[in-house]
């Protein structure tokens, strides 16, 4: 059927990414209720192989659950194999970032590249007007806002998508609390109503990402090789077994014997060095972002203020765009209050109130402990 003919019937066709979890199941159900012509799609993104126990997301059980929900709703459901692309754009980047001493967020990459670019290409080929997910975020008039459930809000992961896509996004569960979503799933009799939350990274089946790095990096990769642990004054206090095992703010795996708790405050990949310091050394007042992306036609300019969030579930803090923003393509933000554990590789996401403005990847040049010491 052509798009023209469907428009005459005043029925929009929407492709729903169904992971087999409760949120996207309810998203599909709500869109059916709202009168959309709904097509369900489950993305096959990677393969665990035979020897990994089943998991709540992206597993065969999840595909079966998504199918069962689609059958229950009476909608078409297809499996889309995006393994090659996901492997390159998400898993490959994940490994590369750790290899460079950063702490990546694969969900951001998946949204930017896999869901709202590759899946969108499928949606276009299927002549879909819109694309939907189970994200807790609200799309209104072509802009994205935080989800109504403050505990579940996932807008932090969505700063990187193409601005032109936003108006085509449908976000039916964004106005729900998680409890309401589950209640809706139960009312609809969906098999996924009481599925446990998936909290881990989908392709890190055990919750331990080290095996993924070991699988993809050469065995002599510097990121996995022993190196010095030093204090902020440069004193060597021990050895680590690979800087990829560490992230800013981490305590686990560090040498003991200090008068106060010590944390990773920096990773210097070129020297294979992990720098540790005190709680105070973790706080920073400057964040520099690159790989910028804007979901507004009017991005903040030097001197403008906005709110910035530097970790998932961390509160956003007020910030001012520095008058002389670093190198081209980057954005330097002066935080109006110090923020703990700003980790290169994580996302710095800008908001105006609840509206998502855009964001970027936190770069690694800023030595936090000196800026907090001065």
């Amino acid at each position, binding site marked *: 059927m052509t798009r023209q003919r469907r428009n005459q019937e005043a029925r929009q066709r929407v492709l729903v990414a169904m992971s087999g979890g409760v949120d996207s199941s309810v998203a599909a159900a709500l869109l059916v209720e709202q009168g959309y012509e709904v*097509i369900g799609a489950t993305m096959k993104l990677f393969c665990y192989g035979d020897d990994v126990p089943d998991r709540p997301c992206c597993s065969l059980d999840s*595909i079966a659950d998504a199918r069962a929900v689609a059958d229950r709703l009476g909608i*078409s459901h297809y499996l*889309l194999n995006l*393994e090659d692309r996901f492997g390159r754009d998400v898993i490959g980047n994940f490994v590369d970032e750790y290899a460079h001493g950063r702490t990546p967020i694969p969900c951001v990459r998946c949204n930017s590249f896999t869901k709202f670019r*590759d899946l969108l*290409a499928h949606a276009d080929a299927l002549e879909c007007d819109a694309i939907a997910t189970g994200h807790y975020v609200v799309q209104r008039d072509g802009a994205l806002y935080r989800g109504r459930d403050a505990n579940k809000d996932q807008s932090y992961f969505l700063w990187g998508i193409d601005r032109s896509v936003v108006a085509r996004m449908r976000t039916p569960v964004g106005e729900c609390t998680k409890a309401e979503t589950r209640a809706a799933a139960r009312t609809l009799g969906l098999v996924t109503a009481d599925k446990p939350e998936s909290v881990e990274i989908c392709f890190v089946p055990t919750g331990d990402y080290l095996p993924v790095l070991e699988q993809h990096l050469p065995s002599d990769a510097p990121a996995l090789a022993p190196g010095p642990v030093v204090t902020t004054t440069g004193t060597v206090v021990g050895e680590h077994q690979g800087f990829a095992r560490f992230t800013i703010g981490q305590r686990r795996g560090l040498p003991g014997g200090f008068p106060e708790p010590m944390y990773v405050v920096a990773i210097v990949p070129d020297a294979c060095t992990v720098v540790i310091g005190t709680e105070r050394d973790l706080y920073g007042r400057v964040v520099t972002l690159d790989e910028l992306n804007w979901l507004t036609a009017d991005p903040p300019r030097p001197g403008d203020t906005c709110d910035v969030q530097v970790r998932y579930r961390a509160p956003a803090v007020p910030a001012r765009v520095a008058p002389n923003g670093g190198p081209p393509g980057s954005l330097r933000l002066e935080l109006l209050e110090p923020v703990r554990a700003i980790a290169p590789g994580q996302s710095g996401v800008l908001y105006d109130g609840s509206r998502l403005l855009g964001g970027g990847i936190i770069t690694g040049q800023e030595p936090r402990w000196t800026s907090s010491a001065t």
Partner: protein
Amino acid sequence: MATPAIYLDNAATTPVLPEVRDVMLPFLDATAFGNPSSRHRFGRVARAAVERARAQVAAAIGAEPGWIYFTSGGTEADNLAVLGGALAAKAGGRPFRVAVSATEHKAVLAAAHAVDGLGGEAVTLPVDGDGLVDLGGLDEALAGGVALVAVMWVNNEVGTIQHVATLADRCAAAGAWLVCDAVQALGKVPCALADLPRAMLALSAHKIGGPKGTGALVVPDAHAVHPLIHGGGQQGGLRPGTENVAGVVGFGQAAERAGRQAHAAAAHVGALRDALEAGLTRAIADAVVHAARVPRAPHVTNIAFPGTDSEALLMHLDLAGVCCSSGSACTTGAVTPSHVLTAMGVPRDRAVASLRFSFGPQNTMAEVEQALDVVPQVVEKVRSLGAVLRR
């Protein structure tokens, strides 16, 4: 979807024929629900119906009624023949070894694998580029000593018709049984078991307008096969269990019709298949029909559309109302080339870009014309999507 769907997947299954449904209904009602093993009148009614069905199936494939053992379908019949046949050979001091062609149905391949797992041996027979079993490979396997050789009459994915008579003669001369999966042959090509020495056939009802869950193993000598399930003495103990009376009755009716109308039905589906092939190869310059150089069953065609992948094609065709299939069922979304096309030497990129269209008596030329409108557009669309996703 508002578009009426066109069903071109009759090799997967067929709609139950109205005349089949009609003869089954009494056995789903309170009138003829009896157990065929019962001595009373209810039992007699059911028993008579089962025996009539047995005769109908036998007549359709040129066999004696006593050779028919009803099963739960083609998969069970294949397992009974291959695994049961191997176990009988082992018990009789013959080689505990089976040879199976590389293009067999998974039911046969998996049963052969099970023989291997039980301490026996499974040998794979290579095929040529059109799917015909290599006779040199067959002779080699026979010379090495095998209990049975499994080669399907008509391949379910590409339609290749094997030289069954030749294969049966060579097997018989070597003292081996030919196990012939005739699921796709029944009603499509002439089949007469009586002409074949030392051969047994596996059949399925739902490929010929009968109900799902019913099939048969046809074997002239019950001692050639050991039972795989054990129970009461039904069907000579070779396949015990209370008969699926309604299913068997439907199978009998469908088989009778298949035998009666084989010629006309073959002409009908053959004309549709040829029209689709001609139209698609005309519209899509680089489309390739698999096994095109050898005699094929009239109801099936398998075509490669280079530069596409079958999963994407199936999805878009389904949305456009054209229902067909790729060679193999795909449960995980992993694009795995068909083992049949792979065995025929078809390159991977072409194998994963192949679709099977299969016809039944209910299909019409108008449907073929509609498919000819849709398929080239979908192929074009999937090719451009592939280009986008490769960027």
